[in-house]
């Protein structure tokens, strides 16, 4: 199987890489901003996974006494109208963001990969039909498509993931298709055909692994937009329903009216969304520079 070996590429480029630890250090030294992004993502994932260990508050417990309590000793980041701890809701909200972001990106990339590979490798009428279908899906902005999908599927965690994943498919399919078109003409594909491999097997074992580099670049870019779209859907009241604490919905509950009276309800959830998306963007840029040297500047 012909796949580009990144370890070997790094070694050839003069990097002193032995084992995973030194390649991580190499990455951090070459892409300091990317390493910062990776740290932010690590903190985000850890927050989501260990949410119950980090905060003593339950994100759903209401307490009339603490209604709209400002940030202070008891509630570090204040409490909302129903007296729920804002910090706890942000910490548990990381789970929703992570689930929807990763879920939608993974689903969208998987769908786009299958569609793009089939359409690029087999070509013909299949390719034509699929391309027209992708044209249709791309004639609506991501948020509008996700809004209509979310509304027609109904509010639930799974449906939100699907509603965001489907509009991501055309972007991924386009990229995979174009790299498949180039790979299809490579000598190693011809060699595999010469030894009598079936076309489907060639597509899966020889072409697919070589499309992974652009796929990873694309996936990190999509992760940020998936998280942003999730928060926008929740903000508009069409995202993940109660009782899940979602960052976007924390803002819609608090919007306009709390801008005057309880700014902590507006500031902190937005900081959480922006920090995580900023992390994915930093990491995404570094990964793109690393895997796609044509775009490196």
């Amino acid at each position, binding site marked *: 199987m012909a796949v580009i070996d990144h370890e070997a590429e790094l070694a050839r480029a003069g990097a002193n890489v032995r084992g995973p630890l030194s390649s991580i250090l190499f990455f951090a030294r070459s892409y300091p901003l990317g390493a910062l992004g990776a740290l932010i993502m690590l903190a985000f994932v850890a927050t989501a996974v260990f949410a119950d260990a980090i905060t003593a508050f339950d994100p759903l417990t209401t307490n009339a006494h603490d209604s709209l309590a400002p940030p202070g000793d008891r509630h570090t980041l204040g409490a909302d109208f129903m007296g729920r701890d804002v910090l706890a809701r942000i910490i548990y909200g990381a789970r929703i963001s992570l689930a929807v972001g990763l879920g939608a990106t993974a689903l969208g990339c998987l769908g786009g990969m299958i569609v793009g590979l089939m359409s690029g490798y087999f070509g013909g009428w299949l390719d034509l039909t699929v391309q027209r279908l992708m044209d249709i899906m791309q*004639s609506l902005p991501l*948020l509008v498509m996700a*809004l209509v999908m979310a509304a027609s599927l109904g509010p639930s965690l799974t449906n939100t993931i699907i509603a965001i994943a489907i509009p991501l498919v055309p972007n991924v399919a386009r990229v995979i298709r174009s790299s498949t078109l180039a790979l299809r003409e490579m000598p190693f594909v011809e060699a595999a055909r010469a030894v009598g491999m079936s076309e489907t097997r060639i597509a899966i074992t020889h072409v697919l692994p070589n499309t992974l580099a652009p796929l990873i670049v694309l996936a990190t870019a999509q992760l940020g937009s998936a998280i942003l779209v999730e928060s926008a859907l929740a*903000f508009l009241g069409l995202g993940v329903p109660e009782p899940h604490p979602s960052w976007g919905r924390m803002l819609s509950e608090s919007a306009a009216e709390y801008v005057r009276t309880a700014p902590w309800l507006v500031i902190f959830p937005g900081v959480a*969304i922006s920090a995580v998306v900023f992390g994915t963007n930093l990491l995404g840029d570094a990964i793109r520079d690393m895997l796609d040297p044509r775009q490196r500047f």
Partner: protein
Amino acid sequence: MGAYLVRRFLLMVLTLFGMSVLIFVMLRLVPGNITDIIFDSAGFVNPAKKAAIERQLGLDQPIVTQYITWMAGLARGDLGYAFVSEKPALDEILPRIPVTAKLAVLALAFSVLFGVPLGVISAVRQNTGLDYVLRVVSLSGLSLPSFWLGLLILMACVHWFGWIPIYRSSPDNFWQEIALLSIPAAAVGFRSSALVMRLTRSSMLEVLRQDYIRTARAKGASEPSVNYDHALRNAVLPVVTVIGIEAAFLVGGLIVTETVFNIPGVARFLVEAIRWRDYPIVQNLVMFIAIIVVMVNFIVDMAYAALDPRIKYEE
């Protein structure tokens, strides 16, 4: 050229036809229409009354008949009646377009005015401190949700001026309206300006490495002349495409920003209609957005081909 135009046009029509089928099916795929929402909230269901309303709205017809009715209406310029307000859908949609259009134009102007110059500066000073700062700023522009940025702007206005720039339905004059709209437009345009800036930067860097730039330097052209006369003119081409595409995709930012600033535009109206399953409004508005996106793409392609003589039409 003529054949290419015709082919592109036919593809455009095909795409829009596909979109109309897709949106129509998607809205009706899942059980539950406006009558369910109305009767759910009433808590009491009289099946005969519900059926009567469904008949009145045409929801009892087979889906194919409903689709043909819609298309036939579109051909006559009749968009049907809005379920919620019971007014003609066209009368509901048309008056809301100007505000959204003004907002979109302002946001686009904002993104070009900031994005292009900052992108050029960032490229010319590549790998300096200024470049790093600008790159981080542009990346953060892509990371802030535009509705949160809108809320922060509202908060700043309240804090410093004790006043909220909420859009009133009848501003006194054109300039006052523009001034009022420029605040939400900045919230929408910030994200696009970040995108435009990143593209200008990378496009500029690519051009700056070309041989003719070295030639320009070698013949003694001044640094500003090299950067602006020789490089920028060529670097700006790909940016034009993106600005065109961005124009259509501003819609996402417009939806949330109109909600935050309470602007009675068409983007916020779409969300309300989606919540109520107001089919005539949703399907016509979605088609309207799709038509704009597809047309903008078409115009950008044409403009690109006209501006760059290297692009040929044959295939």
